Each structure stands twice: as structure tokens, then as C-alpha cells.
């Protein structure tokens, strides 16, 4: 396929660059012109986490001229198992600053542009417009759909990667003739039905594998060489170390890239993904479930009340930290209802309050008259009540 960009003239390589990229220059598929194309290229990495770390590092090493990074987060100790652009000394630091330092150390000629923000419908088109290619390393459905739609609307390839536990997916979306993310998944799953990585865990090496596949596709698109992952979904199964490939088709009825698109501007992606903004809800109830703070829970315990606390996390999480709840893992709840007393106020907790909210809603639907969710879960307990309760 043809190279992505045709800037005229291509930038010259300096003497330092000729020696730095010598192993590229002797590859016929890259050569002098290809290396100049990489130097001229502008790539946007959305997220500098698990996928963004290897992506940005390899793109910087390969000689990409301009690398934009979008992130608003700070480095946490639990990131370091996989987010290899950040180091132990960076804990608490902005991911953008930490990433920039590593990238510039690797390649001082690299132009890093930091977008210290959460990508949103209000800023996405403005941020994307200066880039040739977008690499999506985000962690949530609203941003996935946002990146996809913004790429389709601006005609920019979306190099996609996604991971869960031991499994990954990669593809190239939103090229002129290829399918987009919405052709593959017209609708997001309702919140709660698909677990997030924070709940399900992820093998630290997996984003390395998938992020490097994304980086490879970015480079190929810029060079216009090889067969890109357009119209193909690559599946990576790290546990069995098996790679499979599925055919993707452009859906003529796709609401954003189809023949008669109904999405012609960016929409409210939180709403599209069924996420109700916090402000629109009564702070003390969520979807009809009363929320109890950890401070109030502790106050009731200290007052001598025998609170009826159910812990819906997994046994391995219970081993790390617990606050005295009865352990019934979330997926066991439906068949263990007999163990949960309907006549008492059932207070449910998990790590962050998200899973327990789902289970509280399930219990309410199952006819439990008094169900309460512990807002913030173990994390809030560790922050506000007892720091010796281990966060994870």
C-alpha cells in the first residue's frame, strides 16, 4: 500500500541520524526515504499505560519525528508490573512527565507533545487534527468509541490494541476502505457485564506483546510497506501462546463509517456506554442502592452494631486484604442466595465499590428489601480508616 503521508520535501537526516538508524537504512523496506518518512510522521498515543509504554518507546527508538501523548493520570505502584516506561522513582509523578523523560533519554531528537487531559468529545478533534495516525491504548469503552469516531470523522487510521488477562486483540481501523471499531462492535456492553482489567487482572507482559504489534502497524502504515492489519482482527492468547486471525468487514450500515452515517459529529460517549454521570445521581444512592461511606460503616461497627457485611471479591483478593466481611465471590452470589439473610440489612463491599454495586443491584432485584453498598470499598477503607489494610 502507499505510504501514509506525502510531505514534500521529506526532511533530511543528520549525520547522527544516519548512524543511529543504520540498521533501518540497510533494510530495503525502510531505506533512506522510509527513515525520512518516519522522521516526518506525527503519531498520537492515547494513553501512556500498559499499551502506550512499549508503543511510545519503540516509536521513539524507530525515529518517529513527533509523538503526541494523551494522559491525565499519575504513576501508581500497581502500574509498574506492566507500564515499563515508568520506574519506581516515578510513583506519584504525572505519567506524561515520566514518559517524556524516558523517551527523550532514548531519543533526544524526538519532539514530544504532551496533552495533559482526558480525551473527550470537546477536545478530541482539536487534539487529533495535527497527527497522521492515532494509536489507541485506552482502558475503557467510552474512550474507545470516542477515538474510533474521531478517527473516522478526520480520516486518520486508528491502530487498535486491547487486552484482558492473558488475551489481546489488535487491528487497524478507520482507514479509507477498511472497517472501523463500530463495524466490529456496533454497541458497547452494558456497564458491569464485562469485567475491567482492574477487576480481572492482566498478565504484565501481555500489553508489551500487543503494544509492540501496534507499534509495528504504525511503522508499516507510515512506510506504506507490507500488509497492515486492515480488515483483520489479530487475537493473541498468551497463555497457550497462540495467534489467530479473524476477518473483519466494513459494515455498510455502520452508523459512523457506513454508506448513510448517522453519527456525523462526536457524541456523549459516557451516555452511549450507559454510564450515568455521578452528579446526576443522589450522592447517597446509586441506581436505588443506598451508599455507605467507610467512615459511617466504621462508626456503626464501633458503636457495637453487628453489621451484616458481605465481601463479593475473589478468594485471592481476600487473602491480600479483608475487613471482616463474609466472603461470597460475585459469581457465586446467584447460587448462594440461601446463605444471605433477607431479614437483615445486607451491606456489600468489594475492592473499589464497583462490583459490590452490581451485586447490591442484583440482590435488590432478587427481593432483598435492605441492601447497602460500601462506597470506595477496601481502597477507601485503607485510605480513610486503616492504612494497614493492604491496597492492591
Amino acid at each position, binding site marked *: 500500500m502507499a505510504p501514509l503521508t506525502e510531505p514534500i520535501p521529506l526532511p533530511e537526516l543528520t549525520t547522527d541520524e544516519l548512524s543511529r538508524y543504520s540498521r533501518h537504512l540497510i533494510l530495503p523496506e525502510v531505506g533512506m526515504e522510509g527513515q525520512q518518512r518516519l522522521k516526518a510522521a506525527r503519531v498520537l498515543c492515547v494513553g501512556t*499505560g500498559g*499499551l502506550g509504554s512499549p508503543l511510545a518507546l519503540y516509536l521513539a527508538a524507530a525515529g518517529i519525528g513527533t509523538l503526541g501523548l494523551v494522559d491525565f493520570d499519575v504513576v501508581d505502584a500497581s502500574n509498574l508490573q506492566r507500564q515499563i516506561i515508568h520506574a519506581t522513582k516515578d510513583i506519584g509523578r504525572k505519567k506524561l512527565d515520566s514518559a517524556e523523560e524516558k523517551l527523550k533519554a532514548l531519543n533526544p531528537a524526538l519532539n514530544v507533545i504532551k496533552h495533559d487531559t482526558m480525551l473527550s468529545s470537546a477536545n478530541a478533534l482539536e487534539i487529533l487534527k495535527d497527527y497522521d495516525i492515532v494509536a489507541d491504548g485506552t482502558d475503557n469503552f467510552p474512550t474507545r468509541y470516542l477515538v474510533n469516531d474521531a478517527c473516522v470523522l478526520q480520516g486518520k487510521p486508528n491502530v487498535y*490494541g486491547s487486552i*484482558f488477562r492473558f*488475551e489481546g*486483540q489488535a487491528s487497524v481501523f478507520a482507514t479509507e476502505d477498511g472497517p472501523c471499531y463500530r463495524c466490529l462492535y*456496533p454497541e458497547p456492553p452494558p456497564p458491569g457485564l*464485562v469485567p475491567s482489567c482492574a477487576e480481572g487482572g492482566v498478565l504484565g507482559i501481555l500489553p508489551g506483546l500487543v503494544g509492540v504489534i501496534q507499534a509495528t502497524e504504525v511503522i508499516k502504515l507510515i512506510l506504506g510497506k507490507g500488509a497492515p492489519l486492515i480488515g483483520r482482527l489479530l487475537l493473541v492468547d498468551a497463555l497457550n501462546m497462540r495467534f489467530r486471525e*479473524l*476477518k473483519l468487514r466494513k459494515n455498510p450500515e455502520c452508523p459512523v463509517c457506513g454508506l448513510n452515517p448517522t453519527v456525523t459529529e462526536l457524541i456523549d460517549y459516557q451516555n452511549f456506554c450507559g454510564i450515568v454521570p455521578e452528579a446526576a445521581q443522589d450522592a447517597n444512592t446509586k441506581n436505588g442502592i443506598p451508599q455507605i461511606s467507610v467512615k459511617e460503616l466504621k462508626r456503626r461497627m464501633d458503636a457495637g452494631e453487628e453489621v451484616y457485611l458481605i465481601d463479593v471479591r475473589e478468594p485471592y483478593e481476600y487473602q491480600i486484604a479483608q475487613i471482616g466481611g463474609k466472603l461470597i465471590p460475585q459469581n457465586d452470589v446467584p447460587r448462594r442466595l440461601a446463605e444471605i439473610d433477607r431479614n437483615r440489612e445486607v451491606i456489600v463491599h468489594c475492592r473499589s465499590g464497583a462490583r459490590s454495586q452490581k451485586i447490591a443491584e442484583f440482590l435488590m432485584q432478587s427481593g432483598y428489601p435492605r441492601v447497602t453498598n460500601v462506597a470506595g470499598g477496601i481502597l477507601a477503607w485503607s485510605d480513610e480508616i486503616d492504612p494497614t489494610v493492604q491496597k492492591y
Partner: protein
Amino acid sequence: MTIFIPTPLRTFAGGQDAVEVNATTISEALAKLTETHPELRRHLFTAEGKLRAFVNVYFNDEDVRYLPAKEATAVTAADTLSIIPSIAGGWTN
């Protein structure tokens, strides 16, 4: 035929990554799968019995939605079905 179960749904299929079923069509294969593993049903199908929009089913390497006979497509023991749900992870805070 072999039905590949993706990681997020394995809890509902007894932890297995693949399930063997004897079936003559794709819909029969999925029916047998959810008979054996009833918890999978609500993850794969709507209350009206339609495949959910965020779950893709592939017959070998082809999306079932694009097969001429769709779910009525005939299958043999050598064929595979892959269930591919959307996953969002990557940044993973």
C-alpha cells in the same frame, strides 16, 4: 465442533477455554453450549434470544453475521466457532 470460549466468559463455562459440541448448524451448536452452561446464556443472548451486539461469533475466521445462511449455516466436526466479546483494557489503572 469446537467452540472457543474467551477469557471473560470462561467463569461461566466451568473455566474451560474450549467446549466440544455435536451439532449440524451454528444455532444448534450455540443452543447446546448454553444448555450445558446456562450461565453463558445471558452473556451471549438478549432476553428475546438474539445474539448481543457486543458479542461477535465467528465461524472459522468469518463473522456469522456475514454468512449467507447466518446462524443456519451447516457445520461439521472440523469447524470452529469463536466467541469474541469486546474488551476495553490497555491502560488499566
